[in-house]
């Protein structure tokens, strides 16, 4: 790859990339794309890929075999997209190796196997196959960040540039001042996607205002929560989009120092982002004097190893500095004193990925999406026994009921919805009768629920509210960094009380002790982990109080999950 020296060279490269991209889809050949991502690998996508490669060469089929990222439809993995000459691309789900020869044989006979198709990438139906966008899982989605996920090869910068990538960065670099970039982000009213929903433009502006140098811009791709898997899918499917957002952030802060902190357990995300950075260096979109603009930028990747707390801003910065990732008291805020005690702007992966479209189309365009206070789109994941499990991208304002029953298809047969856990380990659940609330940062708060990072958990009647509360609080206990007492001692106390109840030794006054202890933990803990650790328990207690009381007074667990049901003795453990 030749390093591009100026904007004209980039434009020429982009034109060639686009031409090659269009030829790929118009030439008289088969184009077969296989989704290779964390979830599809778990379901055998690599075997599918190898098997396809073997059968294509054995059958002397002139074909281009490509890898792409994840389309979000975990429920249909592994997926294969086939473009035959004269046909639009058709996406097939559940393509395990055993189905590969059958599919290829059928296609050669001219049988498009509509029964295996998820949909066709075309505006209308094609030989009985409906458009992909009409699939129930996709119909209600609004895809900005996932627009090209599952279509481009995430390990190819050329693919990304062919579909318009890095245009926003060039626009910022050559046509806008850093102040103008920040003004657009502010106008968009983009709010942080990592949990708290802090306005991104205001954070960037404070970072810009602090005079000390160097400054740092950091992507938070830690994603250590037990309830969400969106950031890693984004990095696996379109890593350059995140990198482009980071570059724009660095430009806005006028700093050459960008970082991405990626959870060590997300191996493929790490590898693909690493590859993206290497390619950007080779092409001259990273490094010194980018495209002759005078702006330089370097991106470093750092990882941790399985400590949820390292996702907290100040802990993450200590982790990057090679210290134990433990939060510190604020102020000073990170925008004043962060990494290496310099002004640092930290945002979530998804936040950065939202930036290019804002720069490209303008902040007011973005603000027109979603609701008034929660603009734009949000990546959400739904866990539990839902029909269409996966990652979806929705406009804010969709109701929780629509999200569950339309996008994720409701619960699978034989399951009855009991509630939705929101905000992971940081908030409470919603009951079945509370689901008509719109998904937006403000609307969920009065209900003790939260958008958080967008990870929701649907649970059915086989889940016991007491046991689930214990699971969520035990997570916080286990992940507590131990720096401050209310959290270090308070969370185990809550778990102990819950264990007592689960084992049939609960006392009526335990419910008051829970309230009392929770209040202390929430008010006195040093960081976000402790400050919200009791929330899932308080929420469960409020919504499913009769179940708690049943455990205590009748020694009965209606779900049959708790040890009382089996008459097991008290034991402590994880």
């Amino acid at each position, binding site marked *: 790859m030749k390093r591009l020296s100026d904007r004209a060279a980039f434009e020429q490269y982009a034109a060639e990339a686009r031409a090659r991209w269009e030829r790929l889809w118009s030439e008289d050949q088969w184009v077969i794309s296989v989704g290779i991502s*964390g*979830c599809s*690998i*778990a*379901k055998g996508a690599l075997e599918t890929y190898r098997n396809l490669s073997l059968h294509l060469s054995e059958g002397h089929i002139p074909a281009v075999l490509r890898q792409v990222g994840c389309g979000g439809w*975990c*429920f249909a*993995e592994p997926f294969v997209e086939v473009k035959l000459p004269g046909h639009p691309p058709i996406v097939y789900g559940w393509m395990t190796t055993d189905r590969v020869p059958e599919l290829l044989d059928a296609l050669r006979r001219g049988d498009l196997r509509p029964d295996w198709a998820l949909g066709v990438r075309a505006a209308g139906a094609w030989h009985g196959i409906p458009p992909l966008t009409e699939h129930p899982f996709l119909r209600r989605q609004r895809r900005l960040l996932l627009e090209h996920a599952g279509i481009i090869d995430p390990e190819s910068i050329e693919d990304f540039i062919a579909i318009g990538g890095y245009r926003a960065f060039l626009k910022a670099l050559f046509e806008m001042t850093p102040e103008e970039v920040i003004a657009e982000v502010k106008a968009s009213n983009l709010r942080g996607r990592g949990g708290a929903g802090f306005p991104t433009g205001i954070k960037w502006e404070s970072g810009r205002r602090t005079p000390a140098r160097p400054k740092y811009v950091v992507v938070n791709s830690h*994603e*250590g*929560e*037990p*309830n*969400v*898997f969106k950031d*890693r*899918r984004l990095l696996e499917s379109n890593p350059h989009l995140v990198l482009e957002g980071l570059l724009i952030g660095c430009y806005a802060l006028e700093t050459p120092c960008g970082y991405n902190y990626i*959870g*060590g*357990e*997300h191996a493929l995300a790490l590898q693909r982002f690493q590859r993206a950075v290497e390619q950007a260096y080779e092409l001259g979109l990273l490094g010194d004097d980018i495209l002759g603009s005078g702006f330089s930028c370097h991106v*470093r990747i*750092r*990882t*941790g*190893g*399985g*400590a*949820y707390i390292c996702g907290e801003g100040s802990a993450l910065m200590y*982790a*990057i*500095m*090679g*210290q*134990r*990732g433990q939060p510190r008291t604020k102020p000073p805020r990170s925008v004043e004193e962060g990494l*290496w005690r310099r002004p640092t702007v930290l945002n979530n992966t998804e936040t950065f990925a939202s930036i290019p479209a804002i720069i490209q189309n303008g902040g007011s365009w973005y603000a027109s999406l979603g609701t008034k206070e929660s603009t734009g789109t949000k990546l959400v*994941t739904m*866990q*539990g*026994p839902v029909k269409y*499990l*996966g990652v979806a991208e929705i406009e804010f304002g969709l109701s929780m009921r629509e999200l569950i029953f339309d996008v994720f298809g409701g619960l699978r047969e034989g399951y009855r919805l009991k509630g939705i*856990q929101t905000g*992971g380990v940081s908030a409470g659940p919603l009951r079945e009768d509370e689901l008509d609330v719109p998904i937006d940062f403000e609307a969920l708060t009065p209900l003790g629920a939260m958008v958080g990072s967008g*990870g929701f*958990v*649907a*649970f*059915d009647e086989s*889940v016991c509210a007491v*046991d*689930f509360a214990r*699971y969520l609080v035990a*997570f916080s206990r*286990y*992940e507590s960094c131990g720096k401050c007492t209310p959290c270090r001692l308070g969370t185990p106390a809550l778990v102990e009380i819950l264990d007592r109840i689960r084992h049939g030794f609960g006392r009526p006054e335990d419910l008051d002790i829970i309230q009392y202890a929770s209040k202390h933990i929430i008010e006195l803990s040093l960081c976000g982990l402790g400050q919200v650790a009791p929330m899932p328990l308080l929420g469960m207690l409020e919504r499913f109080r009769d179940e708690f009381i049943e455990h205590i007074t009748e020694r009965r667990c209606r779900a049959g999950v708790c040890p009382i049901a089996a008459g097991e003795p008290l034991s402590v*453990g*994880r």
Partner: protein
Amino acid sequence: MEERETARREIDLQPLRRILEERYRPRDHQEAQELVVGACQEAQHLYGWVPPQAAQLIAEHLGVTINRVYGLLTFYADFRTEPPGEHFLWLCHGAACYIAGSQKVVDALRTEYRLGEDGTTSDGLLTVHVFDGCLGACDLAPVAQLDHHEYIGQLDANRLRELVEELRACRRVGSNDETIE
């Protein structure tokens, strides 16, 4: 058990040294500190754990104290400072897996296989790590990952028992082969 003792003694530091020299070349002390965790991960990829000799090498190479290295190795859940068993099982205990019953699998493991403090069965066959986050394969919940590549979905206590038996059987076949030779 013997294998684990051998693993403890025989560490070839050459591959780690090569990686450190090629890819871990900090420009200043600040960057050196940033690289400690990554270097430890390289060691764990190579050896399956971070042996003391490797920790020492990393400390010397990056110019940090050995205490600093151990401070990090003991902070993060993923690092091992003891050699793992012959096989390594990552058992997901994320929310999707919990809803699908991973707690029962965790309990079965603890009671039936009497795992040691480092999660290793007493015969050294298997090291189990209960993973608090989400493995990212929720559609297969409850899910485990064996030896860093093979996924086992829809896991329950029975399937787990079968798995352990399969691993035991492979081990027996393996040792028979040796006696034939």
